[in-house]
Protein backbone atom coordinates (compact mmCIF):
# COMPACT_ATOMS: atom_id res chain seq x y z
CA UNK A 1 0.00 0.00 0.00
CA UNK A 2 2.73 2.42 0.86
CA UNK A 3 4.28 2.14 -2.55
CA UNK A 4 1.36 4.04 -3.98
CA UNK A 5 1.94 7.12 -1.97
CA UNK A 6 4.34 8.64 -4.40
CA UNK A 7 2.06 8.54 -7.36
CA UNK A 8 0.17 11.22 -9.16
CA UNK A 9 -2.87 12.81 -7.71
CA UNK A 10 -5.43 13.51 -10.29
CA UNK A 11 -6.86 16.70 -8.88
CA UNK A 12 -5.27 19.57 -10.67
CA UNK A 13 -5.14 21.95 -7.75
CA UNK A 14 -3.44 19.48 -5.48
CA UNK A 15 0.28 19.14 -5.50
CA UNK A 16 2.55 16.89 -3.60
CA UNK A 17 4.92 18.13 -1.03
CA UNK A 18 7.63 16.05 -2.58
CA UNK A 19 9.57 18.68 -4.44
CA UNK A 20 10.18 20.80 -1.42
CA UNK A 21 13.32 19.00 -0.46
CA UNK A 22 15.79 19.48 -3.19
CA UNK A 23 16.72 23.05 -2.83
CA UNK A 24 20.19 24.06 -3.78
CA UNK A 25 22.20 26.33 -1.54
CA UNK A 26 23.24 28.06 -4.75
CA UNK A 27 19.64 29.22 -4.94
CA UNK A 28 19.94 30.63 -1.44
CA UNK A 29 22.81 32.74 -2.62
CA UNK A 30 21.09 33.73 -5.85
CA UNK A 31 18.12 34.83 -3.79
CA UNK A 32 20.13 36.99 -1.45
CA UNK A 33 22.04 38.30 -4.43
CA UNK A 34 18.83 39.68 -5.88
CA UNK A 35 18.30 37.21 -8.71
CA UNK A 36 14.56 37.44 -9.31
CA UNK A 37 14.54 34.01 -10.88
CA UNK A 38 15.48 32.58 -7.51
CA UNK A 39 12.36 34.20 -6.06
CA UNK A 40 10.25 32.70 -8.83
CA UNK A 41 11.85 29.33 -8.20
CA UNK A 42 11.26 29.66 -4.46
CA UNK A 43 7.62 30.41 -5.19
CA UNK A 44 7.35 27.46 -7.50
CA UNK A 45 8.81 25.12 -4.91
CA UNK A 46 7.36 26.50 -1.72
CA UNK A 47 4.32 28.53 -2.75
CA UNK A 48 2.05 25.49 -2.36
CA UNK A 49 3.44 24.67 1.08
CA UNK A 50 3.12 28.27 2.26
CA UNK A 51 -0.38 28.51 0.85
CA UNK A 52 -1.50 25.21 2.32
CA UNK A 53 -0.10 26.02 5.76
CA UNK A 54 -1.99 29.29 5.66
CA UNK A 55 -5.15 27.69 4.38
CA UNK A 56 -5.12 25.02 7.07
CA UNK A 57 -4.59 27.58 9.80
CA UNK A 58 -6.93 30.27 8.55
CA UNK A 59 -9.52 28.18 6.83
CA UNK A 60 -10.24 30.69 4.12
CA UNK A 61 -8.81 30.93 0.65
CA UNK A 62 -8.82 34.70 0.61
CA UNK A 63 -6.86 34.85 3.85
CA UNK A 64 -4.45 32.19 2.59
CA UNK A 65 -3.95 34.22 -0.58
CA UNK A 66 -3.07 37.25 1.50
CA UNK A 67 -0.57 35.34 3.59
CA UNK A 68 1.02 33.73 0.55
CA UNK A 69 1.52 37.05 -1.15
CA UNK A 70 2.78 38.65 1.99
CA UNK A 71 5.30 35.93 2.69
CA UNK A 72 6.99 36.17 -0.69
CA UNK A 73 6.80 39.95 -0.82
CA UNK A 74 8.21 40.22 2.68
CA UNK A 75 10.90 37.64 1.94
CA UNK A 76 12.04 39.45 -1.16
CA UNK A 77 12.04 42.85 0.44
CA UNK A 78 14.01 41.65 3.42
CA UNK A 79 16.36 39.39 1.48
CA UNK A 80 19.34 41.51 2.49
CA UNK A 81 18.75 40.51 6.10
CA UNK A 82 18.71 36.86 5.12
CA UNK A 83 22.04 35.19 5.69
CA UNK A 84 22.51 32.03 3.64
CA UNK A 85 25.29 30.83 5.89
CA UNK A 86 23.01 30.93 8.92
CA UNK A 87 19.79 29.54 7.52
CA UNK A 88 18.52 27.72 4.51
CA UNK A 89 15.95 29.54 2.47
CA UNK A 90 13.17 26.94 2.86
CA UNK A 91 13.39 27.08 6.64
CA UNK A 92 13.58 30.85 6.54
CA UNK A 93 10.45 31.02 4.40
CA UNK A 94 8.65 28.70 6.78
CA UNK A 95 9.56 31.03 9.64
CA UNK A 96 8.15 34.01 7.76
CA UNK A 97 5.05 32.00 6.97
CA UNK A 98 4.47 31.13 10.61
CA UNK A 99 4.81 34.78 11.55
CA UNK A 100 2.44 35.90 8.83
CA UNK A 101 -0.12 33.30 9.86
CA UNK A 102 0.05 34.29 13.49
CA UNK A 103 -0.27 37.96 12.51
CA UNK A 104 -3.36 37.08 10.52
CA UNK A 105 -4.79 35.10 13.42
CA UNK A 106 -4.28 37.89 15.89
CA UNK A 107 -5.70 40.45 13.50
CA UNK A 108 -8.70 38.23 13.17
CA UNK A 109 -8.99 37.87 16.93
CA UNK A 110 -8.91 41.63 17.33
CA UNK A 111 -11.48 41.99 14.64
CA UNK A 112 -13.73 39.49 16.32
CA UNK A 113 -13.35 41.24 19.58
CA UNK A 114 -14.26 44.57 18.07
CA UNK A 115 -17.27 43.26 16.35
CA UNK A 116 -18.28 41.07 19.24
CA UNK A 117 -19.89 39.17 16.52
CA UNK A 118 -21.67 35.92 16.83
CA UNK A 119 -21.24 35.43 13.13
CA UNK A 120 -17.67 34.39 13.33
CA UNK A 121 -15.76 33.14 10.43
CA UNK A 122 -16.77 29.68 9.58
CA UNK A 123 -13.77 27.48 9.23
CA UNK A 124 -14.02 25.04 6.44
CA UNK A 125 -14.01 21.76 8.29
CA UNK A 126 -12.81 19.70 5.35
CA UNK A 127 -9.60 21.63 5.19
CA UNK A 128 -8.63 20.79 8.73
CA UNK A 129 -7.77 17.14 9.02
CA UNK A 130 -4.50 17.33 7.13
CA UNK A 131 -3.14 20.28 9.03
CA UNK A 132 -0.82 18.05 11.00
CA UNK A 133 0.70 16.52 7.90
CA UNK A 134 1.42 19.83 6.31
CA UNK A 135 2.86 21.20 9.50
CA UNK A 136 5.12 18.21 9.71
CA UNK A 137 6.35 18.77 6.18
CA UNK A 138 7.22 22.32 7.20
CA UNK A 139 8.92 21.02 10.32
CA UNK A 140 10.89 18.62 8.22
CA UNK A 141 12.34 21.52 6.25
CA UNK A 142 13.30 23.16 9.49
CA UNK A 143 15.03 20.04 10.74
CA UNK A 144 16.79 19.59 7.42
CA UNK A 145 18.39 22.92 8.05
CA UNK A 146 19.26 22.02 11.62
CA UNK A 147 20.83 18.78 10.46
CA UNK A 148 23.01 20.69 8.06
CA UNK A 149 24.19 22.89 10.84
CA UNK A 150 25.36 19.93 12.86
CA UNK A 151 28.47 19.54 10.81
CA UNK A 152 30.41 16.33 10.68
CA UNK A 153 30.77 13.77 12.04
CA UNK A 154 27.43 14.49 13.73
CA UNK A 155 25.68 14.91 10.44
CA UNK A 156 27.07 11.70 9.03
CA UNK A 157 26.13 9.87 12.22
CA UNK A 158 22.56 11.12 12.22
CA UNK A 159 22.24 10.43 8.55
CA UNK A 160 23.20 6.82 9.06
CA UNK A 161 20.84 6.52 12.02
CA UNK A 162 17.93 8.18 10.28
CA UNK A 163 18.18 7.16 6.69
CA UNK A 164 20.06 3.92 6.77
CA UNK A 165 18.52 2.75 9.98
CA UNK A 166 21.85 1.71 11.42
CA UNK A 167 22.29 1.09 15.13
CA UNK A 168 24.90 3.03 17.06
CA UNK A 169 27.08 -0.07 17.03
CA UNK A 170 26.94 -0.26 13.27
CA UNK A 171 27.57 3.47 12.93
CA UNK A 172 30.56 3.16 15.19
CA UNK A 173 32.13 0.50 13.00
CA UNK A 174 31.10 2.16 9.76
CA UNK A 175 32.65 5.49 10.66
CA UNK A 176 35.39 4.02 12.77
CA UNK A 177 34.47 6.16 15.74
CA UNK A 178 34.40 5.03 19.37
CA UNK A 179 31.04 3.83 20.59
CA UNK A 180 30.88 6.44 23.33
CA UNK A 181 31.55 9.21 20.84
CA UNK A 182 28.78 8.02 18.57
CA UNK A 183 26.37 7.79 21.47
CA UNK A 184 27.09 11.24 22.77
CA UNK A 185 26.85 12.75 19.30
CA UNK A 186 23.50 11.08 18.85
CA UNK A 187 22.29 12.33 22.21
CA UNK A 188 23.35 15.91 21.61
CA UNK A 189 22.18 15.99 18.02
CA UNK A 190 18.77 14.58 18.81
CA UNK A 191 18.37 16.96 21.73
CA UNK A 192 19.21 19.81 19.43
CA UNK A 193 16.65 18.73 16.85
CA UNK A 194 14.04 18.38 19.54
CA UNK A 195 14.80 21.84 20.90
CA UNK A 196 14.64 23.35 17.44
CA UNK A 197 11.17 21.93 16.94
CA UNK A 198 10.04 23.22 20.30
CA UNK A 199 11.44 26.67 19.64
CA UNK A 200 9.78 26.67 16.25
CA UNK A 201 6.45 26.04 17.87
CA UNK A 202 6.98 28.29 20.84
CA UNK A 203 6.93 25.58 23.47
CA UNK A 204 10.06 25.96 25.55
Amino acid at each position, binding site marked *: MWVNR*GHYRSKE*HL*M*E*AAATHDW*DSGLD*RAFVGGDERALAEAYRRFGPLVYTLALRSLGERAAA*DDVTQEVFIRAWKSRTTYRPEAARLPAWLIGITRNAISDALSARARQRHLEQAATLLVVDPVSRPDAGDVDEVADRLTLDEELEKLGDPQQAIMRLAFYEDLTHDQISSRLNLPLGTV*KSHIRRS*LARLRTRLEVEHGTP
Partner: protein
Amino acid sequence: MEHLDADLLSLLALGEPLGTDADAAHLAGCPVCSDTLRGLRHAVHIATLDPRGVELEKPGSQNWTAIHQALGLSPALATDPLNQHSVPRGAPPERSAIDPATAQAPLNHGSKTASAPAPIRPSAKNRAARPGLWMMAAAAGIILGTAAGWVAAGVIGHTGTPSPSSTQTAPASIVLAQTSLSPLPAHTGSGDARVEQLPDGTRQLMIRLSNDHITGFRGVWVGSADLTKMVSLGVLANESGNFTIPAGIDLAQYPIVDISNQPYNGDPAHSADSIARGKLNLKN
Protein backbone atom coordinates in the same frame (compact mmCIF):
# COMPACT_ATOMS: atom_id res chain seq x y z
CA MET B 1 14.99 6.67 41.63
CA GLU B 2 17.50 7.83 39.11
CA HIS B 3 16.28 8.84 35.70
CA LEU B 4 17.24 6.94 32.61
CA ASP B 5 20.55 7.70 31.01
CA ALA B 6 20.25 10.38 28.33
CA ASP B 7 22.20 8.30 25.82
CA LEU B 8 19.84 5.42 26.35
CA LEU B 9 16.79 7.61 25.83
CA SER B 10 18.24 8.88 22.57
CA LEU B 11 18.91 5.41 21.27
CA LEU B 12 15.45 4.28 22.31
CA ALA B 13 14.03 7.24 20.41
CA LEU B 14 15.87 5.99 17.35
CA GLY B 15 14.24 2.63 17.81
CA GLU B 16 17.13 0.63 19.12
CA PRO B 17 15.92 -2.27 21.21
CA LEU B 18 17.83 -1.51 24.36
CA GLY B 19 17.18 -1.21 28.05
CA THR B 20 16.52 -3.58 30.86
CA ASP B 21 13.21 -4.49 32.38
CA ALA B 22 14.02 -2.10 35.19
CA ASP B 23 14.48 0.68 32.64
CA ALA B 24 11.14 -0.17 31.11
CA ALA B 25 9.50 -0.08 34.50
CA HIS B 26 11.05 3.25 35.28
CA LEU B 27 9.98 4.69 31.97
CA ALA B 28 6.43 3.53 32.46
CA GLY B 29 6.22 5.33 35.77
CA CYS B 30 8.33 8.40 35.16
CA PRO B 31 6.68 11.37 33.49
CA VAL B 32 10.01 13.16 33.05
CA CYS B 33 11.69 10.34 31.16
CA SER B 34 8.66 9.46 29.11
CA ASP B 35 8.18 13.10 28.19
CA THR B 36 11.80 13.34 27.07
CA LEU B 37 11.48 10.18 25.06
CA ARG B 38 8.29 11.41 23.45
CA GLY B 39 9.98 14.67 22.45
CA LEU B 40 12.97 12.87 21.00
CA ARG B 41 10.82 10.41 19.14
CA HIS B 42 8.88 13.26 17.67
CA ALA B 43 12.13 14.77 16.40
CA VAL B 44 13.05 11.41 14.86
CA HIS B 45 9.62 11.15 13.33
CA ILE B 46 9.87 14.58 11.74
CA ALA B 47 13.42 14.10 10.54
CA THR B 48 12.53 10.85 8.84
CA LEU B 49 9.18 12.00 7.59
CA ASP B 50 8.48 11.37 3.98
CA PRO B 51 6.74 14.41 2.57
CA ARG B 52 5.56 12.54 -0.45
CA GLY B 53 1.92 11.83 -0.27
CA VAL B 54 1.15 14.93 1.71
CA GLU B 55 -1.09 16.90 -0.54
CA LEU B 56 -0.65 20.58 -0.91
CA GLU B 57 -3.00 23.02 -2.48
CA LYS B 58 -1.84 25.06 -5.37
CA PRO B 59 -2.25 28.78 -4.83
CA GLY B 60 -4.21 30.52 -7.57
CA SER B 61 -2.34 32.45 -10.22
CA GLN B 62 -3.59 35.75 -8.87
CA ASN B 63 -1.09 35.30 -6.06
CA TRP B 64 1.94 35.34 -8.28
CA THR B 65 0.44 38.20 -10.26
CA ALA B 66 0.11 40.22 -7.07
CA ILE B 67 3.64 39.38 -5.94
CA HIS B 68 5.04 40.12 -9.36
CA GLN B 69 3.29 43.44 -9.46
CA ALA B 70 4.05 44.49 -5.88
CA LEU B 71 7.74 43.86 -6.33
CA GLY B 72 7.97 45.16 -9.88
CA LEU B 73 9.65 41.99 -11.10
CA SER B 74 10.95 41.53 -14.60
CA PRO B 75 8.28 41.01 -17.26
CA ALA B 76 10.09 37.81 -18.21
CA LEU B 77 8.87 36.35 -14.93
CA ALA B 78 5.23 37.34 -15.36
CA THR B 79 3.99 33.78 -15.83
CA ASP B 80 2.99 31.96 -12.67
CA PRO B 81 6.01 29.77 -11.86
CA LEU B 82 3.61 27.07 -10.72
CA ASN B 83 2.37 26.71 -14.25
CA GLN B 84 5.82 26.04 -15.55
CA HIS B 85 8.09 23.11 -15.20
CA SER B 86 10.88 25.39 -14.16
CA VAL B 87 11.70 29.02 -14.09
CA PRO B 88 12.81 30.13 -17.52
CA ARG B 89 16.09 31.05 -19.09
CA GLY B 90 19.19 30.07 -17.26
CA ALA B 91 17.30 30.01 -14.06
CA PRO B 92 18.77 28.13 -11.16
CA PRO B 93 18.69 24.64 -12.49
CA GLU B 94 16.24 22.00 -11.64
CA ARG B 95 18.03 20.04 -9.01
CA SER B 96 16.56 16.65 -9.23
CA ALA B 97 13.88 16.73 -11.87
CA ILE B 98 11.59 14.42 -10.04
CA ASP B 99 9.43 12.48 -12.34
CA PRO B 100 6.38 11.44 -10.40
CA ALA B 101 5.96 8.38 -12.53
CA THR B 102 9.26 7.01 -11.37
CA ALA B 103 9.35 8.81 -8.12
CA GLN B 104 10.76 7.06 -5.21
CA ALA B 105 8.78 5.10 -2.81
CA PRO B 106 9.01 6.42 0.66
CA LEU B 107 11.80 4.84 2.54
CA ASN B 108 9.49 3.53 5.11
CA HIS B 109 10.95 3.61 8.51
CA GLY B 110 7.94 1.83 9.80
CA SER B 111 7.44 1.52 13.47
CA LYS B 112 10.62 3.38 14.11
CA THR B 113 8.97 6.66 13.31
CA ALA B 114 5.64 6.09 14.94
CA SER B 115 4.77 9.04 17.06
CA ALA B 116 2.69 7.09 19.48
CA PRO B 117 3.99 6.81 23.00
CA ALA B 118 7.01 4.67 22.89
CA PRO B 119 7.31 1.16 24.11
CA ILE B 120 10.69 0.58 25.61
CA ARG B 121 11.47 -2.11 23.12
CA PRO B 122 10.29 -0.75 19.85
CA SER B 123 10.41 -3.19 17.06
CA ALA B 124 12.39 -1.03 14.72
CA LYS B 125 15.88 -1.79 13.55
CA ASN B 126 14.20 -4.81 12.26
CA ARG B 127 16.77 -5.71 9.74
CA ALA B 128 14.85 -8.62 8.39
CA ALA B 129 11.93 -6.53 7.31
CA ARG B 130 13.85 -4.16 5.15
CA PRO B 131 14.90 -6.31 2.26
CA GLY B 132 11.26 -7.15 1.81
CA LEU B 133 10.39 -3.51 1.46
CA TRP B 134 13.12 -2.99 -1.05
CA MET B 135 12.00 -5.94 -3.05
CA MET B 136 8.45 -4.70 -3.04
CA ALA B 137 9.65 -1.39 -4.28
CA ALA B 138 11.66 -3.01 -6.99
CA ALA B 139 8.70 -5.07 -8.02
CA ALA B 140 6.67 -1.92 -8.25
CA GLY B 141 9.16 -0.58 -10.72
CA ILE B 142 10.41 2.09 -8.43
CA ILE B 143 13.86 3.42 -8.89
CA LEU B 144 15.49 2.86 -5.60
CA GLY B 145 18.52 4.90 -6.38
CA THR B 146 16.41 7.95 -6.75
CA ALA B 147 15.07 7.48 -3.29
CA ALA B 148 18.48 7.43 -1.75
CA GLY B 149 19.50 10.30 -3.94
CA TRP B 150 16.59 12.24 -2.67
CA VAL B 151 17.45 11.44 0.87
CA ALA B 152 20.94 12.62 0.27
CA ALA B 153 19.81 15.67 -1.60
CA GLY B 154 17.08 16.77 0.64
CA VAL B 155 17.87 15.68 4.04
CA ILE B 156 21.42 16.41 4.71
CA GLY B 157 21.45 19.42 2.61
CA HIS B 158 23.69 17.85 0.18
CA THR B 159 21.46 19.58 -2.23
CA GLY B 160 23.27 18.83 -5.41
CA THR B 161 21.56 16.87 -8.08
CA PRO B 162 21.77 13.24 -7.26
CA SER B 163 24.15 12.25 -9.96
CA PRO B 164 23.65 9.20 -12.10
CA SER B 165 26.60 7.59 -10.46
CA SER B 166 25.47 8.32 -6.94
CA THR B 167 21.96 7.16 -7.62
CA GLN B 168 23.12 3.93 -9.10
CA THR B 169 25.26 3.19 -6.14
CA ALA B 170 22.65 4.03 -3.56
CA PRO B 171 21.95 3.87 -0.78
CA ALA B 172 24.92 4.95 1.23
CA SER B 173 27.58 7.49 0.84
CA ILE B 174 29.69 9.15 3.45
CA VAL B 175 30.95 12.67 3.48
CA LEU B 176 34.71 12.59 3.75
CA ALA B 177 35.42 16.26 3.41
CA GLN B 178 33.95 19.49 2.31
CA THR B 179 34.74 23.10 1.77
CA SER B 180 33.23 26.25 0.46
CA LEU B 181 34.66 27.65 -2.73
CA SER B 182 35.49 31.31 -2.56
CA PRO B 183 36.02 33.50 -5.58
CA LEU B 184 39.46 34.73 -6.44
CA PRO B 185 40.05 38.36 -7.36
CA ALA B 186 38.42 39.31 -10.65
CA HIS B 187 35.90 36.52 -10.27
CA THR B 188 32.52 36.29 -8.63
CA GLY B 189 31.61 32.61 -8.75
CA SER B 190 31.35 30.90 -5.42
CA GLY B 191 30.01 27.61 -4.25
CA ASP B 192 31.06 24.55 -2.40
CA ALA B 193 32.71 21.21 -2.78
CA ARG B 194 32.33 17.99 -0.95
CA VAL B 195 33.90 14.61 -1.19
CA GLU B 196 31.67 11.64 -0.69
CA GLN B 197 32.64 8.05 -0.49
CA LEU B 198 30.16 5.89 -2.28
CA PRO B 199 29.34 2.43 -1.04
CA ASP B 200 31.58 0.92 -3.69
CA GLY B 201 34.49 2.81 -2.19
CA THR B 202 34.94 5.35 -4.95
CA ARG B 203 35.24 8.95 -3.96
CA GLN B 204 33.28 11.63 -5.69
CA LEU B 205 34.10 15.28 -5.67
CA MET B 206 30.81 17.16 -5.88
CA ILE B 207 31.13 20.72 -7.01
CA ARG B 208 28.64 23.50 -7.07
CA LEU B 209 29.69 26.85 -8.38
CA SER B 210 27.54 29.81 -9.26
CA ASN B 211 27.90 31.33 -12.67
CA ASP B 212 30.73 33.61 -13.43
CA HIS B 213 31.27 35.26 -16.74
CA ILE B 214 34.38 33.71 -18.08
CA THR B 215 35.86 33.40 -21.50
CA GLY B 216 36.96 29.80 -21.34
CA PHE B 217 35.65 26.62 -19.78
CA ARG B 218 35.86 25.60 -16.16
CA GLY B 219 38.47 23.06 -15.17
CA VAL B 220 38.17 21.17 -11.91
CA TRP B 221 41.37 20.43 -10.05
CA VAL B 222 42.65 19.12 -6.78
CA GLY B 223 46.00 20.41 -5.72
CA SER B 224 48.63 20.37 -3.04
CA ALA B 225 48.42 22.98 -0.32
CA ASP B 226 51.14 25.05 -1.97
CA LEU B 227 49.55 24.59 -5.40
CA THR B 228 52.72 23.18 -6.86
CA LYS B 229 50.98 19.95 -7.79
CA MET B 230 47.61 19.94 -9.52
CA VAL B 231 45.54 17.06 -10.81
CA SER B 232 42.80 17.71 -13.34
CA LEU B 233 39.51 15.94 -12.63
CA GLY B 234 37.48 17.25 -15.52
CA VAL B 235 35.31 20.02 -16.82
CA LEU B 236 32.50 21.66 -14.89
CA ALA B 237 29.88 22.25 -17.53
CA ASN B 238 26.99 23.39 -15.35
CA GLU B 239 26.48 24.90 -11.98
CA SER B 240 27.18 21.56 -10.44
CA GLY B 241 29.01 18.42 -11.32
CA ASN B 242 30.47 15.26 -9.86
CA PHE B 243 33.97 14.04 -10.47
CA THR B 244 35.50 10.73 -9.55
CA ILE B 245 38.70 11.08 -7.60
CA PRO B 246 41.27 8.53 -8.78
CA ALA B 247 42.00 5.95 -6.12
CA GLY B 248 45.70 6.83 -6.07
CA ILE B 249 45.08 10.40 -5.03
CA ASP B 250 45.58 10.99 -1.32
CA LEU B 251 43.45 13.99 -0.49
CA ALA B 252 45.69 14.79 2.44
CA GLN B 253 48.32 15.54 -0.20
CA TYR B 254 45.81 17.30 -2.47
CA PRO B 255 43.48 19.19 -0.15
CA ILE B 256 42.88 22.17 -2.42
CA VAL B 257 39.88 22.23 -4.73
CA ASP B 258 40.41 24.69 -7.51
CA ILE B 259 38.20 25.72 -10.41
CA SER B 260 40.03 27.36 -13.26
CA ASN B 261 39.11 29.37 -16.29
CA GLN B 262 40.72 27.38 -19.06
CA PRO B 263 41.15 29.07 -22.41
CA TYR B 264 40.25 27.13 -25.51
CA ASN B 265 43.85 26.83 -26.57
CA GLY B 266 44.36 23.13 -26.27
CA ASP B 267 46.84 23.45 -23.46
CA PRO B 268 46.03 20.84 -20.84
CA ALA B 269 47.93 22.63 -18.07
CA HIS B 270 46.24 24.75 -15.44
CA SER B 271 45.72 28.20 -16.90
CA ALA B 272 46.79 29.90 -13.68
CA ASP B 273 43.51 31.79 -13.84
CA SER B 274 41.56 30.36 -10.93
CA ILE B 275 37.91 31.26 -10.48
CA ALA B 276 37.31 29.85 -7.04
CA ARG B 277 39.13 27.77 -4.53
CA GLY B 278 38.70 26.03 -1.22
CA LYS B 279 40.58 23.74 1.10
CA LEU B 280 39.00 20.45 2.04
CA ASN B 281 38.57 19.80 5.73
CA LEU B 282 39.38 16.16 5.86
CA LYS B 283 37.82 13.99 8.51
CA ASN B 284 40.12 11.77 10.44
